[in-house]
């Protein structure tokens, strides 16, 4: 009781108490007014943000969906001619190419990225600190750099040429820091009490990492990987300089392949209105891929929250 008396200021007399109440009342009115103004400003900002996004999405759906038909998904691209200016064919080659590139890039980036992230989280060494700075810088680097890197190293220096492997290498370099950073965060978020529980049972630190920490962080790690894949799938710059393109259903690592972002880029430059219109369809498919991946990532993340609560 004495403790509480000391903590709460005690008014000397009734008039002091009245003064406190009056001031508090006036203060409250001002706070409500400020709050209302801020809410209105937030609302305006929200509308301003939404306008371009909503317009883009409407445009994409309206103009894109009219392009989607069986030919689009099952046929190879064609060249329009004066005889048949609407003979544009489909984009099956780009869909196959994008899937192949994404799979190869994931195979390269996910194991290395996840292990790097675990190392960053569990190690206190100077090397880890340096790696973290590099990863953070790389995550913010413009993606054309990854394209240039893949081009210089794989296409030119190693003389492998414009191939799926060169493109997926460039995409993997892009995904690596994203995966490493998100893995590090998920591993760090595993409560220390679980690590201690493992150590207190006589487990060696690497066993605690492997059997306790990583399983507990798994849904966060998966979420990070899915978001990295979602980012890679739509990147244009790294594939522009590395995959070579092509009009065949090609998926083999050492051959040139096409990709959805690349065909958007090529078709957008076309002189044929029919090919330029097809761009919207390709973009819609690409956005749908990314949407599904992000949605899956969100579901994984919410599963994690449910389990932790």
């Amino acid at each position, binding site marked *: 009781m004495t403790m509480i008396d000391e903590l709460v200021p005690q008014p000397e007399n009734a008039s002091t108490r009245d003064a406190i109440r009056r001031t508090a009342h006036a203060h409250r009115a001002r706070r409500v007014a400020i709050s209302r103004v801020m809410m209105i400003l937030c609302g305006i900002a929200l509308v301003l943000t939404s306008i371009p996004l909503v317009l883009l999405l409407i445009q994409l759906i309206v103009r894109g969906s009219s392009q989607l038909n069986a030919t689009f998904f099952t046929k190879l691209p064609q060249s329009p001619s004066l005889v048949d200016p609407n003979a544009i064919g489909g984009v099956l080659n780009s869909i196959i190419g994008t899937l192949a590139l994404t799979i190869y890039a994931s195979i390269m980036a996910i194991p290395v990225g996840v292990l790097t992230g675990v190392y960053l989280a569990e190690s206190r060494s100077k090397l880890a600190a340096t790696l973290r700075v590099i990863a953070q810088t790389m995550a913010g680097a413009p993606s054309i750099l990854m394209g240039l890197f893949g081009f210089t190293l794989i296409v030119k220096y190693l003389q492998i040429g414009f191939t799926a492997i060169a493109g997926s290498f460039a995409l993997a370099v892009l995904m690596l820091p994203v995966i490493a950073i998100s893995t590090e965060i998920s591993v760090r978020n595993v409560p220390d009490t679980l690590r201690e*529980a493992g150590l207190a049972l006589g487990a060696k630190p690497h066993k605690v990492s492997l059997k306790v920490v990583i399983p507990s962080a798994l849904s966060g790690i998966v979420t990070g990987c899915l978001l990295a894949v979602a980012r890679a799938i739509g990147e244009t710059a790294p594939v522009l300089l590395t995959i070579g393109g092509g009009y065949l259903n090609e998926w083999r690592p050492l051959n040139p392949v096409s990709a959805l972002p690349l065909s958007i880029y090529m078709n957008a430059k076309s002189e044929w209105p029919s090919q330029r219109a097809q761009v919207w369809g390709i973009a819609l498919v690409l956005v749908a891929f990314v949407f599904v991946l992000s949605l899956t990532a969100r579901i994984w993340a919410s599963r994690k929250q449910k389990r932790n609560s």
Partner: protein
Amino acid sequence: MEKIMSDATSAVNVGSESVKTQNQIAMSLKDVAVSFNGKVAVRDATFDVTKNKVTSLIGPSGSGKTTLLRGLNRLHDLTPGAKVTGQILLEGTDIYRGDITVTELRTRVGMVFQRPNPFPTMSIYDNVVSGLRFNGIKKKSILDEVAEKSLRDAALWESVESRLKVSAGNLSGGEQQRLCIARALALDPEVLLMDEPTSALDPIATLRIEELMVTLKERVTIIIVTHNMQQAARISDDCAFLLMGEDRAGELIEFDATEKIFNNPKDSRTLDYTLGRFG
């Protein structure tokens, strides 16, 4: 087992300063101090923990009870800047400098933490046998046998027998804590450290854990940190009272049979604390 019990009982009857032979002492602390980056957190801890007894560490916040307890299974090892000085003997072996690895030490000195911390990704069964698996024991017949025995010893077998494969997160707080006790018992430790094991539990769950401790001491020596003085008085045989000194470092004020600490302590500060005059 019964022989040890009767020996230990007679030792307390004579008083804890008495002539305990070496084999009645589970752990022995001499001038133990823990410091972090040179700043002392707790010091002057000198006392013997008698086998098959419950020894409680009491004292106000900041008196270093938990810090001291975590020194007993070398959990400070991974904290940068942490240093444990003095001597801690487990069955005569110095746990910091003697011929014992840290992993062996931790299988012989188990620990139950303040908040129940079962592994959330593992089933009830996998939690109980996790310590065995960490230490390379994989034979299913052994794991099954130890799982049942440990869960029975932790008074949890009846309620989880039919759902051993269910995630440990589905248990109530009290059940989770008893699962953590079972997990520690699975390695058949000689000493069980308990860091305020009931502070996150309701009174009924607390009572069950307390009852458990009284039966468990037949097979394992228990050292418990508690904020709850009634708990210390109810369940412990010996009691160490710690207090924060002038330099904000915790220190051992006195160690004695629990009955003496609560009824007739040597130091007036002990009496002030147990009577609730501060802390």
